[in-house]
């Protein structure tokens, strides 16, 4: 365990990141945003593809009928 181990996340020192907070926290915030965007967009892409496939199958069915 490193020297930060005893400090705890509730102390101001942790959030200040030794004076580098304005560089460190935006990086982690952006990383989490990118992970979330990837999940959201992949899910949405699949759902839209499902919808398009459903519509195409209905159209193909009605054309045959």
């Amino acid at each position, binding site marked *: 365990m490193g020297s930060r*181990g005893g400090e705890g996340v509730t102390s101001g020192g*942790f959030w200040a990141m030794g004076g580098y907070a304005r*560089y460190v926290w935006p*990086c982690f915030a952006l*990383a989490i945003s990118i992970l979330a965007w*990837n999940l959201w967009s*992949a899910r949405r*892409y699949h759902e839209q593809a499902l919808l398009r*496939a459903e519509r*195409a199958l209905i159209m193909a069915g009605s054309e045959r009928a």
Partner: protein
Amino acid sequence: MWTWFYRLASPPFVYRVAARLTPWLLLFAAAMIVYGLIAGLVFAPPDYQQGDAFRIIYVHAPSAWLSLFAYMTMAVAGGIALIWRIKMGYAVAAAAAPIGASFTILALVTGSLWGKPMWGTYWAWDPRLTSELILLFLYFGVMSLRAAFEDAGRGDRAAALLALVGVVNVPIIHFSVQWWNSLHQGATVAKFAKPDMPGSMLWPLLAMLCGFMLFFGAVLCMRLRGEVLNRERLASWVRGAVKA
């Protein structure tokens, strides 16, 4: 072994396998990333030179590695599709591109934010930074080229060709810090025999790397399912998939 390989060319097989893999990949990715974040932010000691700013490595390095890995996935899948005419290769390449581009943006922005306190500037036309920026343009180029053709088949082939040509940039990015004078630091983890980091710093980084790779696998599977459906819209097996 080869029958298994050939089954990967079957869209319904790929669609089913991707659906089964996704939750497991996501679960393990979440576990790794949560461990990496806690261990990297809370338990790893500050660097003796960079202080707490070094913690940016826990998102910067995995995203930079992933930007290269996603590109290689895209190029290899495109190459397989071009050489053996396996259409699933084009689907994998199309699914990997936006994921890779997003992680390249993350690598560039986090690198820039790390560069300001360490180098005194957000950006320098340094070999590593410039070649990584070219990688982002290659991703945009591949995606744009695929979308530019009315005939999807031609778009796929053109995009795969560009992705293959762009592979030349991958070793340039990797070795740029050795070939030229660079502000960017050299390898710290790649030297597995004797890494430049103590275990308390290294393990969270390796966990984040594994977590990002597993996350890439999960999102690739999700996107791939959409790609397969888009390409196989009128196939008979899709009826079952749509109802499920």
